[in-house]
C-alpha cells in the first residue's frame, strides 16, 4: 500500500490561449491535511478538476491511493467543488442517497449511513424536506454530508469555508479535525490563509500553473526565517520603512508588521524605535503563511490575492 494519498507527476493542462497548469508535481501523504494555496487563477481548481477527471490531463499522470486514477479510485474521493450546489426540488434524503449512489454506494446503505450525519449536523428534522426549503447554512451542511456519505479515504474541498457563517465554520472545522483523526486525508484548496494555517500540516503554493513552494507547514515557516517583527507604538513611525535592513512594513493600525531582509538584524529597528517612539510592544515572530504567500507570489511576478 502506497503511503501517498495523491501523487501528481508533471500534470499539464492548456485551454485555448493559455496554459492553466504547467508540469505540476505534488505528493499528498496519507493522513495529512494538505493545503493547496495560490492566488486566483493560479490553477488550483483546474488541478482538482483533473484529479476528479472532470477535466482530462494534456500530459502527466495522476495516482490515487497508489493506483493510477480511474473511476474506481475516484470513488474513494469525496469532492466538494468551489462551484457547488444541490438539486433544489429534491427531498433531502433522496438527494443524499443519489449523491452517494453516483459514488457507487447502494441506496440502502446510503439511507442507513445518513442518520448519524443528519443528527450531528442538526438536519435530522429536515430529511424529508425539499432542498429549497432549507436555509443557506443548512444547505451547506447538507452539501458536506453529500461529500462524505460514501465514506471516502480522501476528502478534497475547494474553498470549503466560503459562504459559511462563523458557526458553520466552527462546525465544519470540528468535523474536518475529527475526520482527519480517523485517518482520512484532507486536501483543502483555499486562499483563506488563517483556515489553512490552523488546519493544515502540509501546504503547496502554486502560482501561474506551477508549484513555487511545498512541504510541511513548520518547515516552510522555518525556511522563511524568523525575520518578521511586530511593533506597537505611539508617535510617527513613518521613518521605519527607511531603516537599514527593513524590507517591508505593513501597517495594521494597532501595530505594524515589519519584514526584515535576509540576514538583517532586528535589533537595529528596536534601537531606533525606542529612541524615536514610545514602544508598547516589540516581538520577533514566525512569519504567517499569509506573509510567505504574499512574498513568494510577489517575487514570482504574480499578483497576490
Amino acid at each position, binding site marked *: 500500500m502506497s503511503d501517498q494519498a495523491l501523487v501528481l507527476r508533471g500534470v499539464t493542462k492548456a485551454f*485555448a490561449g493559455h496554459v492553466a497548469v504547467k508540469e505540476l508535481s505534488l505528493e499528498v501523504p496519507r493522513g495529512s491535511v494538505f493545503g493547496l494555496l495560490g492566488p486566483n487563477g493560479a490553477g488550483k481548481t483546474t488541478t482538482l*478538476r483533473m484529479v*476528479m*477527471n*472532470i*477535466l482530462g490531463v494534456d500530459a502527466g499522470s495522476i495516482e490515487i491511493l497508489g493506483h493510477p486514477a480511474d*473511476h474506481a479510485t*475516484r*470513488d474513494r*474521493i469525496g*469532492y*466538494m*467543488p468551489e*462551484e*457547488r*450546489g*444541490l*438539486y*433544489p*426540488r*429534491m427531498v433531502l434524503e433522496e438527494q443524499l442517497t*443519489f*449523491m452517494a*449512489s*453516483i*459514488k*457507487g454506494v447502494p441506496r440502502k446503505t446510503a439511507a442507513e449511513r445518513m442518520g448519524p450525519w443528519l443528527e450531528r449536523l442538526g438536519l435530522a428534522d429536515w430529511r424529508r424536506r425539499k432542498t429549497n426549503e432549507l436555509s443557506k447554512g443548512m444547505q451547506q451542511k447538507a*452539501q458536506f454530508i*453529500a461529500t462524505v456519505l460514501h465514506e471516502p479515504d480522501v476528502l478534497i474541498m475547494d474553498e470549503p469555508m466560503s459562504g459559511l457563517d462563523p458557526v458553520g465554520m466552527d462546525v465544519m472545522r470540528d468535523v474536518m479535525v475529527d475526520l482527519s483523526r480517523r485517518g482520512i486525508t484532507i486536501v483543502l484548496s483555499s486562499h483563506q490563509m488563517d483556515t489553512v494555517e490552523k488546519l493544515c500540516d502540509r501546504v503547496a503554493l502554486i502560482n501561474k500553473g506551477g508549484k513555487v513552494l511545498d512541504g510541511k507547514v513548520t518547515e516552510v515557516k522555518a525556511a522563511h526565517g524568523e525575520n518578521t517583527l511586530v511593533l506597537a507604538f505611539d508617535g510617527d513611525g513613518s521613518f521605519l520603512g527607511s531603516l537599514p535592513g527593513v524590507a517591508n512594513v505593513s501597517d495594521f493600525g494597532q501595530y505594524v508588521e515589519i519584514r526584515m531582509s535576509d540576514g538583517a538584524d532586528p535589533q537595529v529597528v528596536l534601537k531606533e524605535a525606542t529612541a524615536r517612539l514610545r514602544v508598547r510592544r516589540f516581538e520577533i515572530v514566525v512569519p504567517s503563511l499569509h506573509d510567505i504567500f504574499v512574498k513568494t507570489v510577489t517575487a514570482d511576478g504574480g499578483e497576490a490575492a
Partner: protein
Amino acid sequence: MPSKLWAVVRREYLERVRTKAFIIATVLGPILMGGIIVVPVALMGRGAKLLRVAVVDASGTLQAEVEEALRSARRDERPRFDVQPSGDGTAEARPSALKDAVLRGRLDGYLFLPEDTLDGSLATYYGRTVSNRMDLDLMRWRVNDVVVAHRVARAGLDAEEVKELTQSLELRTVRLSEEGEKEDRGVVGMLFAVILLGILYTSILMWGQVVMTSIIEEKGSRVIEVVASGVTPMFLLAGKLLGVGAAGLTQFLVWSLSLLGVSLAAVGPLAAGLTMPEITPLILASFLAFFLLGFAFYATLYAAIGSAVNTVQEAQNFVFPVIMPLILGFVCFLPVIESPDGALAVTLSLIPFLTPLLMFLRIVVLTPPWWQIALSLVLTGAAIWGALWAAARIYRVGILMYGKKPTFPELVRWVRHA
C-alpha cells in the same frame, strides 16, 4: 458504472414524473384529444339541431313542392330542415318580417326564389350562419331537383326518364396498400393524420425543451460539478436523455393508448355515416418509434445548447436554428399529404431531421415501401449518433463554463478540441 447510469436515469425520470405539470398534462392530454376528435364527429353525425328555415317563392309555382322537398331531405338518414311557414302577404313583403325573425333568432334562415326561378339559375338563402356547407349543399340539391323537374315537365318530357338519363356519376375513392383495399377516409382521415402529426411535433419539441432547461438549471444551481465528480459527463448526458426520454415516453404512451381507445370506441356509436380513421398496429408502432427518434435527435441538440448557455433567455438564439427543421417538417405536411409518394415527399421524408415527422405522416396516409422506411431509420440513426458525438463534446466543456455566452465559432472549437 451501469449502476451509476441507472441512478442518474432514475433521478431524472422521477423528477419529471412527480411534477404536477406532468400529471396534469398526461391526464388532460387525452381528454383534450378526445374532445378534438369526438366532438366534431359527434356533431357532424347527429348532434346538430334542425335548421329552421322558411321558403319565399316569388314565382308562385314552387312553394309547396320546395317546402316538401326540404322537409323530406335527409343526411345520414336524419332530417335536416324544419320548414316554418313564411307568413302572409306578397312575396315582396314577406322577407322583411322573415329577416326580422332571423335576426331575433326565431328562424335560422330563409330561402328566396325569385320570379324567374324556372328560367334563371339563381336562388338566394339568407341566414345567420352560411358556413354550414353540408346543409346548404343539401338544400341546393333538393331545390335544384324540384326546379329541374318543373322545367322537364314544362318541356313535355317524362320526368322519370330524364332523371334516369341525366343521373350524375359518383366517384368512389379506394386506397390500395399491401394490407388490402380500404375505403378512403377523406377529410376525417386527413384531419386525423394532422392531429397525430401535431401531437408528435409538440411532444418532441416539449421534451427536448425539458432536457435543455433541466441542464440550465443544473448549471444554475451549481450542482453539475458535484455530480460530474461521480459520473462521467458522457454518462450524465446519456442518463439525462434516457431519464427524460422515459418520462416523455410514459406520457406519450398514455396519450397513444387513449387515442387508440377513443378511436375504437368511436367506431361504434359515434361513427354513424362517417368512417372513423383506423389505427393500425403499424401506425401505433411508428408513432412511438418516431417520437423516440425525434426526441433522441432534437433533445441531444437541446442538451448541447443547455450546457453552453447560462440562462433560458440566452438559449433562445441557439434554439431557433435547431428547431427550424422541425417547424419546416410540420409545415411540409400539406405537400406530403397531397402526394405522399411523390418525389418531393419521398426526398423530404428521408432527410434525417425531417424523418420523424414526415416519414410518420407518409406511413399514416399510405404504406411507403419498406426499403424507404428502413433507409430513413438508418439515416436518422446516423444523424442521432453524430449529434450525440458533438453534443457530448460541447456538454463536457459547457457544464464548467459560467459567465459569457459562447459564440457559435467557439462552440465549433469546443467540438473540435474536446
